[in-house]
């Protein structure tokens, strides 16, 4: 950690360290280049083989050896079922029905290829099964000429080449290090550049130039000391790094990566399995309301308004109910605390799919328990899903019921960290119970409740189930929130994943803005 312990690191070690770092990157690039080149070559060779064979059978000649080629007839459409059709294959002079039993393994390939080539285009491709076989099909006199090559194994991975090149590079670096001063950078440059040699041989110019660029960058970094600083940073903060890395790795692979993909998808349009880049179209379409006026429940801004109301109402209720209960349940003198606590987390413990439906039933107009209760106390029936306000309330009530136990547990935990002494000091200072809550409890709950509120509002903002199951958007679509709308883009409006992703991105940006302020509140408590 001290400066001196680094100046003592032998130069050689440092050079090799940088070389190793660059070497790993270079190897990744080179391997990718190798695989690409190898597959391209293989495909070209096989397709060429198949093309020549297909042409041959089309001309009535024999196919090349190892290639399976034949002419498939035009289809004969069933008279009874317009979607059924038969084809025959002429092979080795004999003709037989494709699809009849028994058939040989390639029959289905021939049949499908014929169907596809029927439209007139020539097919020339590698089979997607990874066997290395190529298929070529085009129209020919008497039907469709089709050729399928035998499998071909790709060239093996050139381990020896890579090891050799690495060794060579390392010795160049070492040599540079031993000569000293400027030769060090040169050594690094030359050593890393050596790794570009195989890619040059494969004529993979992109890979070669990437590796060369890498060599320059590393040498330059070394020159201005960035690589040292970086390495030192790694060592200085090795404890932090090692404590943080499991979470960081897991999060970046399983959360951040899908998240980035999700963000990117917003710039594409999805249609029947194909994605087209459309720039900001999706966003403008959503933000402009997609042709709906502002007071139309399908307009983005309308939904946003509902969503914000929904979030605020819920969080406010979750926190008040949760914290109040937590305060009650943390009283020293309370008997049966464990039982109460356990019962009160039940709404969280039971799968919310069914409890949400129970609530929906309870809000049902004629027979619901809520209305029965209202009746009992002499109030009239409420058609809960008949007006916006009541439907929205029904959603909020359900979600509050579902959500308060979480806040309660968080608050229960946080309450326990507050030093008793502070309450003692405050009560000696003459503070009443409320003042103690206001001045001691609340400030100390903030570090725990802050994140819970921030995350809770994110979850609520994106709470799909309750809306979907309870009001289902009724009346009209007016109680829908942004996620339910995004969900509909994804699943009910023709798999418009791009639109859904764009809406997701907008949701994300809104939440980001929200938490910029939210975390400010959270952070202010953090010790500097």
């Amino acid at each position, binding site marked *: 950690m001290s400066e001196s312990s680094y100046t003592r690191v032998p130069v050689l070690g440092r050079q090799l360290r940088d070389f190793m770092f660059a070497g790993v990157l270079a190897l990744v690039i080179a391997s990718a280049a190798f695989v690409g080149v190898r597959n391209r070559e293989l495909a070209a060779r096989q397709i060429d083989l198949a093309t020549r064979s297909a042409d041959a059978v089309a001309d009535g000649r024999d196919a090349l050896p190892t290639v399976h080629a034949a002419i498939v007839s035009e289809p004969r459409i069933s008279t009874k079922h317009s979607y059924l059709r038969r084809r025959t294959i002429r092979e080795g002079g004999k003709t037989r029905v494709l699809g009849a039993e028994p058939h040989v393994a390639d029959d289905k390939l021939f049949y499908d290829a014929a169907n596809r080539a029927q439209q007139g285009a020539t097919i020339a491709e590698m089979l997607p099964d990874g066997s290395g076989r190529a298929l070529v099909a085009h129209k020919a006199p008497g039907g469709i000429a089709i050729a399928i090559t035998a499998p071909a194994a790709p060239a093996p991975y050139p381990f020896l080449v890579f090891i050799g090149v690495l060794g060579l590079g390392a010795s160049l670096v070492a040599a540079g290090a031993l000569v000293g001063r400027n030769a060090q950078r040169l050594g690094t440059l030359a050593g890393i550049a050596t790794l570009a040699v195989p890619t040059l041989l494969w004529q993979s110019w992109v890979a070669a130039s990437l590796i060369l660029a890498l060599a320059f960058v590393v040498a330059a970094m070394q020159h201005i000391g960035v690589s040292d600083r970086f390495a030192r940073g790694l060592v200085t903060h090795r404890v932090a790094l090692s404590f943080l890395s499991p979470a960081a790795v897991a999060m970046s692979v399983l959360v951040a990566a899908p998240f980035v993909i999700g963000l990117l998808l917003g710039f594409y349009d999805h249609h029947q399995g194909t994605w087209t880049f459309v720039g900001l179209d999706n966003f403008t379409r959503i933000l402009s309301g997609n042709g709906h006026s502002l007071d139309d429940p399908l307009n983005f801004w309308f939904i946003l308004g509902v969503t914000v109301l929904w979030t605020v109402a819920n969080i406010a209720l979750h926190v008040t109910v949760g914290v109040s209960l937590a305060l009650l349940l943390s009283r020293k003198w309370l008997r049966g605390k464990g039982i109460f606590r356990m019962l009160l987390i039940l709404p969280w413990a039971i799968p919310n799919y069914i409890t949400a439906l129970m609530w929906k039933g309870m809000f049902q107009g004629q027979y619901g328990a809520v209305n029965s209760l209202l009746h009992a106390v002499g109030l009239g029936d409420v058609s809960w899903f008949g007006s916006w306000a009541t439907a929205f309330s029904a959603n909020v009530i359900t979600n509050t019921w579902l959500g308060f136990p979480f806040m309660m547990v968080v608050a229960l935990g946080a309450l326990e960290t507050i*030093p008793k*002494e*502070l309450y*003692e*000091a*405050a*009560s*000696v*200072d*003459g*503070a*009443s119970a409320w*003042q103690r809550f206001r*001045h*001691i409890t609340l*400030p*100390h709950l903030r570090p725990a409740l802050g994140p819970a509120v921030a995350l809770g509002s994110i979850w609520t903002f994106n709470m799909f189930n309750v809306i979907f199951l309870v009001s289902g958007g009724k009346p009209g679509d007016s109680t829908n929130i942004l996620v339910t709308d995004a969900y509909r883009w994804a699943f009910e409006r023709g798999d418009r994943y791009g639109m859904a992703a764009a809406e997701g991105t907008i949701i994300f940006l809104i939440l980001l803005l929200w938490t910029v302020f939210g975390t400010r509140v959270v952070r202010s*408590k953090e*010790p500097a």
Partner: protein
Amino acid sequence: MCDLELSGIRKQYDGVARPVIPDLDLVIPAHKMVVLVGPSGCGKSTTLRMVAGLEEPTAGKILIDGRDVTHLPPAERDIAMVFQSYALYPHMTVFENMAFGLRIKHLPEAEIRRRVEATADSLGLRPYLERRPKALSGGQKQRVAIGRAVVRQPKVFLFDEPLSNLDAKLRGDMRREIARIHRELNATAMYVTHDQIEAMTLADQIVVLKDGVVQQIGTPIDIYEKPANRFVAGFFGTPSMNFLEADLTQGAGSASARGNGFEIPVPIANVPSLRPAAAAVDRVVVGIRPERLSLAKTGDDVPLRGEVAMREVLGAEVVLHVESAAGPLTVRTDAGAAPRPGDTVQVWLDPKSIHLFDRASEERL
């Protein structure tokens, strides 16, 4: 009027077999400052916490102004307390810490500011008003704790070792400041300290506790000059009193204590409780304070012989640890001509300043 009375107080902590305080009766007259002293762990803080209402006594009653407050919450007792552990509010600045109690009372903001700033000035905390407690030094924290209590001007003050982390100079200033505030507010106060100077100068009365039992209650001078038992005598005064075992032989109108290598005439007038017609020989302990021993005869003193084992220089004075036939002796004397370790000295003892204790009961005779 605001007197404070503890009657029949017993305190036992959960899970501890012996009660910390078995049975405590204590009356603190209104407007007085009572200093509690006693060895570490004797129950001083516990007593204060019970008066404050932070611990419920296992038995007994606490009365403030004649009102039974035993089960009242602290907020209803109008008490201010300096906690031994400070208990500052970590999320508030020094200013807010001190202002908290005033805000609670809904004083006008200007008044709060005035009072807090005045208190901060008197405690030397002005530059730190905007800091959080964790950015303060130990002594500064302790001063904030004092400030928080005194700024509130309550009727009862409880101080639990409020000056222990301050330097001597500041401690002197603070001590005078506390005395001033106490006087001005006409409050009743209990004060725990381990500092003899604080105890002697602040106290209207000193209560000496040991294992939760009151050993003596009295004015500082009483405690110092007429310790009720060997424990009080040894506990109060630094360095502590020397004790020599002796046998008391009582003649007609005169008595003398004879120990290993010494014999002291005991002025009967000094020992009123001597049984007039007791057995010929009483087993006693003779106590004499180190500052009452001298290296030169000044009156009708009695000499003891010993060898200097250690010499501690305390500035103008020196404490000599002398090994004598009668036992180890501590002598406090002038730095000037003090002998070195290894020297043989004669220590002179003034029979008029001795204290006599029964060897069995350890009570003062």
